[in-house]
Each structure stands twice: as C-alpha cells, then as structure tokens.
C-alpha cells in the first residue's frame, strides 16, 4: 500500500475512544492546575493571617464570616484558621495526587497513539 504523505492509517473506534480520553484528561489537567494554584494561594493567605495573628496584641479580632466581619476572640480565630489550613492542605494533597495520576494516564495514551499514528497525530500543547 502506498504511503505517499497522505496517510491511509485507519482510525478504529478504539483509537477514537483513546483520543477522546486523552482530550478529557488534558482538559482535566488544566482545570487541576488552576485549582492547585488557587489552593496554594489560599494556603499562603491563611499562613500570613496566622502570622499576623501571632504578632497582634488585640484580644478581639475581626474575622470574616460571610459578608461581615464578626468580632471574635483571638483564640477562637486561631483555632478556626488552623482548621481552615488543615482543610486546604488536605485538598491540595488530593489535587496534586489527581494531577500525577492524570499525567501518568496521558503519558500512557501518548505512547499508544504515537505508536499507531506516528506523525499523523499531534498530542503536544501548542
């Protein structure tokens, strides 16, 4: 069979499903990057907040709940911030794990698809 540039490699349903899966993973990867960035920022903000808290000598701190700043005793604010930091850190870990798994699956699919299609397919970021 002539392979003169315009390739005649057949695309099976399984190939199509692999391509679809790669596309979904790629989208999920970008979403995860954004979510991880936001989680890291939140974590940094909480760190700054708890550092400020240590420095301040006021007994009552204005803590944002919803749209208002409630007057809350310093100890309670400290424990609230600790809880929030725990939640964000756990969330961040989960997101990083998912990102690693997504990257691994994408690498697998790249091997399979490049193996079959070689130059006829491009799976890199433009």
């Amino acid at each position, binding site marked *: 069979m002539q392979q*003169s*540039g*315009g*390739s*005649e490699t*057949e*695309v*099976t*349903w399984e190939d*199509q*499903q692999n*391509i*679809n*899966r790669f*596309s*979904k993973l790629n*989208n999920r990867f970008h979403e995860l990057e954004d979510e991880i960035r936001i989680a890291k920022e939140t974590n940094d903000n909480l760190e700054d907040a708890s550092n400020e808290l240590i420095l301040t000598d006021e007994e009552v701190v*204005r803590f944002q*709940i*919803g*749209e*208002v*700043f*409630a*007057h809350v005793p310093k100890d309670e604010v400290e424990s609230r911030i600790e809880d929030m930091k725990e939640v964000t850190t756990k969330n961040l870990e989960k997101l990083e794990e998912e990102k690693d798994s997504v990257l691994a*699956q994408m690498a*697998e699919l790249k091997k399979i698809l490049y193996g079959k299609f070689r130059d006829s397919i491009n799976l890199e970021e433009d």
Partner: protein
Amino acid sequence: MASSSGSGEVATERRGIPGAQFVEDVQTYLAQAGLDVNSALAFLQERLQQYKLVEMKLLAQQRDLQAKIPDIEKCLDTVATLQAKKGSGEALLADFEVSEGIYSRARIEDTDSVCLWLGANVMLEYSCEEATTLLQKNLENAKASLEVLVADLQFLRDQVTITQVTIARVYNWDVHQKRIRQAAAPAKDS
C-alpha cells in the same frame, strides 16, 4: 486501566445534544451519505460550530453554578455562627460594609430566626434550623446540577473530538484520492 466509561454502544444524543457518528471507513461513509467531499466537509464544519455554541452556553452555566456554591456555603457558615452564639447570652458584634470603604458596627442579639434572601426581591424569615435545612438542600441541588453539567460538557467534548477527527480523515482521504488520480492520469495520456 479500566475501560472507558459506558458500554460499547455510543449514546446517539444526550439532553438535546446530537451525537457525532463515528466513521469506520471514509469511502463507505461518503457513499452512504450520498455526499461529495466538499459537502461532507461543510456539513461536518457546521456541526462543529453548533457544538461550539452549545459548549459556550454550558460553560457559562457552569461558571454561574461555581459562583453560587461558595455563596451558599458562606450563608451556612453565618447561620451556624449565629446558632453557636445563641447559648452564650452575649451579643455578636459585627462590622459590615455600608458603602465602598465605609463600615458600620452591628450588634446582633440572641435570636431564633434569620431572614433568607430568596431572590426576586423576596426575603423570608426562617428559624435557624429551618434556614440551615433549606440552605443545605440548595447546596446539594447546586452540587448535583454541577455534576450533571460537567458530564454534559464531557459528552460534548467527545463529540467535538470525534467530529474534528472525522473532518481530518475525510480531508486526508480526499488528498489521497487526488494523488491516486494524478498518478493514474499521466499513464493514460501517454
């Protein structure tokens, strides 16, 4: 690796979004559809545009829901704080924004009820427990809607990918056919 979602069969459409037909063989596809290459390409391109439009709409809905969920969580937090303060007997002092950059202090006494803004200029008074239940239900509904929306978007993206691959294959097939014809033509002339 687990097999891809769904059984071997293809969903032909989902909530109004038509499914893209997978093409096993370009020649058979063109013969069955009774289209020449250019009409087929035009049809597929139009399908792609329609998909893009639906995708914009769904993405906008997704953004709305993603903004709504933290709002509901903030309300739940506020109600929970009020409830926690109830037993203590002391009032809750809060600074709130009156206008940009201007804040005022409010003194919130012990209370059994809160008012919830339902939208459309309607505000209803609820007991703290009822408010928590209502907000919780709204939060769950919003999260469930978001899940369905995300699934719709994934289905849509699959159809877009299938259509794009089909367009590429039809185009390549056409180029290949032209090359075969050109290779055959000089042989005929001579």
